[in-house]
């Protein structure tokens, strides 16, 4: 990261063609103003909070940090977060591929409506998303009494948390794949079929390799959101310690118990997840770019 920053700040010594020509060169103060503005924004809004999380987490030393993370309720929160992501991400992967396939490769009535509706979870507030599940599956909700009679628990239990997670992470994979598959068109698949490949073979050998970087990128974003979601999950969780708290909810609970070091220790796990996501994302972008360059 430091390397990237310094190349941003000093890498312009050689300058681009635009910068070398007096006619197209911005005045020096404009350049430094814009650079300074964006870098200080970055430092204040991104870098500072990130550093603060780790400083607070380690304020009472590594011992407290490890204890906070190995406490049973924290482990339960980690486990629940992993379970929710392990169910939500593969389901949204399947959905995302099939939706993108349908939209990119077929013509059908209501296609535009579907494309728009896929984005719904992005445009609706997560709290509303959570409340919808309470209205549908809650004891006073549409299916509430039926579920109660059959002793099936959805909200305030793991299934509700998984449902809410699926809802908020719904668009990530599809959004990533639709433009990609639309731009690739159907020619390669048609060629494969003409050459005698079966449908499944075409998918595995032609389509999947073409979309794999986009797909991975979508999956990573989907996973990051699935593990980090707070609002919708908070509404359907019931906040039972050690049972229905995901990592973000656990952070809030521990913070409210004046256990600030522990709260930030758990928060640092989420921050690490974010950093890891960024690194993976960068690797994938580089790989994808080199693949495009080769082709």
């Amino acid at each position, binding site marked *: 990261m430091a390397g990237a920053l310094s190349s941003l700040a000093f890498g312009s010594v050689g300058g681009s063609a635009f910068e070398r020509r007096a006619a197209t060169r911005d005045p020096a103060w404009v350049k430094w103003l814009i650079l300074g503005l964006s870098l200080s924004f970055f430092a204040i809004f991104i870098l500072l909070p990130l550093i603060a999380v780790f400083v607070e987490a380690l304020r009472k030393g590594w011992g407290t940090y490890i204890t906070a993370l190995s406490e049973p309720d924290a482990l339960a929160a980690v486990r629940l977060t992993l379970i929710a992501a392990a169910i939500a991400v593969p389901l949204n992967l399947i959905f995302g591929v099939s939706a993108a396939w349908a939209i990119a490769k077929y013509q059908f009535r209501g296609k535009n409506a579907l494309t728009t509706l896929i984005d719904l979870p992005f445009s609706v507030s997560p709290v509303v998303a959570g409340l919808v599940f309470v209205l549908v599956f*809650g004891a*006073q909700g549409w299916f509430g009494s039926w579920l109660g009679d059959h002793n099936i628990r959805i909200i*305030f239990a793991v299934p509700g948390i998984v449902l809410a997670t699926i809802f908020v992470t719904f668009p990530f994979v599809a959004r990533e794949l639709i433009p990609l598959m639309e731009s690739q068109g159907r020619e390669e698949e048609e060629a494969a079929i003409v050459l005698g490949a079966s449908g499944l073979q075409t998918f595995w050998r032609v389509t999947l390799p073409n979309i794999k970087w986009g797909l991975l990128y979508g999956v990573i974003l989907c996973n990051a959101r699935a593990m980090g979601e707070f609002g919708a999950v908070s509404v359907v969780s019931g906040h039972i310690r050690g049972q229905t708290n995901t990592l973000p909810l656990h952070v809030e609970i521990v913070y409210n118990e004046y256990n600030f070091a522990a709260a930030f220790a758990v928060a640092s796990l989420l921050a690490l997840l974010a950093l890891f996501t960024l690194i993976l994302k960068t690797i994938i972008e580089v790989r994808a770019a080199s693949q495009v360059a080769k082709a």
Partner: protein
Amino acid sequence: MFPMIFRRGLVGAMLLASLASLPAAAQTEKALLNVSYDPTRELYADFNNAFSKYWKEKTGEVVKISQSHGGSGKQARTIIDGLEADVATLALAYDIDEIAERSGKLPKDWQTRLPNNSSPYTSTIVFLVRKGNPKGIKDWNDLAKPGVSVITPNPKTSGGARWNYLAAWGYALKTNGGDEAKAKEFLAAIFKNVPVLDSGARGSTTTFVQRGLGDVLLAWENEGFLSINEFGPDKFEVVVPSLSILAEPPVTLVDEVAKKHGTTDVAKAYLDYLYSPEGQKLAAKHYYRPRKPELADPADNARFPNVTLFTIDDVFGGWQKAQKTHFADGGTFDEIYQPK
């Protein structure tokens, strides 16, 4: 590409399988869920351990007690929506009335089933100020003065906030000779000084002590003392007003849920244990006023300041009436509070 995808599917399937097997393993022990309000976290963390030990010795059964905490009104709503609480230990009777009313999971006369209006401990509302009391806050009328910033949670969602509000109202009536219109003006002046309404008592406490907002926090007595314990007497002090309200946080069995879980006996014993010497001792230790102070540690009892207390029944004619007049939609609170 394929093997990787297959492997991922396999891992997913294994995770699902292990998930499915989780609840089965937990059935060998009894489990209780206590859905409580915000500031009781420390009390019940302690009490649950004591009760588990007691129950193990008495019956040989292992009982695991889980906790959920939040604003009292919000917690009641969650139980109505289906959170399967075996016992509810909330901030005020009205919230449990609502559960009885809307979900039918417990009888409407629930409050008569245990002694002392089903409240094994009481509390009151005090002020927490910054060390040295820089704004010189002594009593309720100081809160209405311009330039004083007051932190209290939202009466719509928090039980503590409703007690705060009613305590101020009771003080106003007492000092102005029972004039309701003047009391309303007084409350409006106080709420003009409130910069932020958190949804629960604990949220307000962190706003005041951690984020450093406000000159005075209207707090549960136990919450005020706890903050001093956590952050040191060199930072905060408790100011006791001339008059306050007797807050009775009630507890109850949620009959239908306990019946379904087969936990009625243990849930009842759990609530009874709150009235036992051990329960009363723990309540006093965590700054809740025990109903039977003679059972608690005298050193703990000595920490409670003398306050003149009035009850909600005396001044407001009970929770149902107070709720309807003040906190229901279009009630007095809605009339006096304009969000900034």
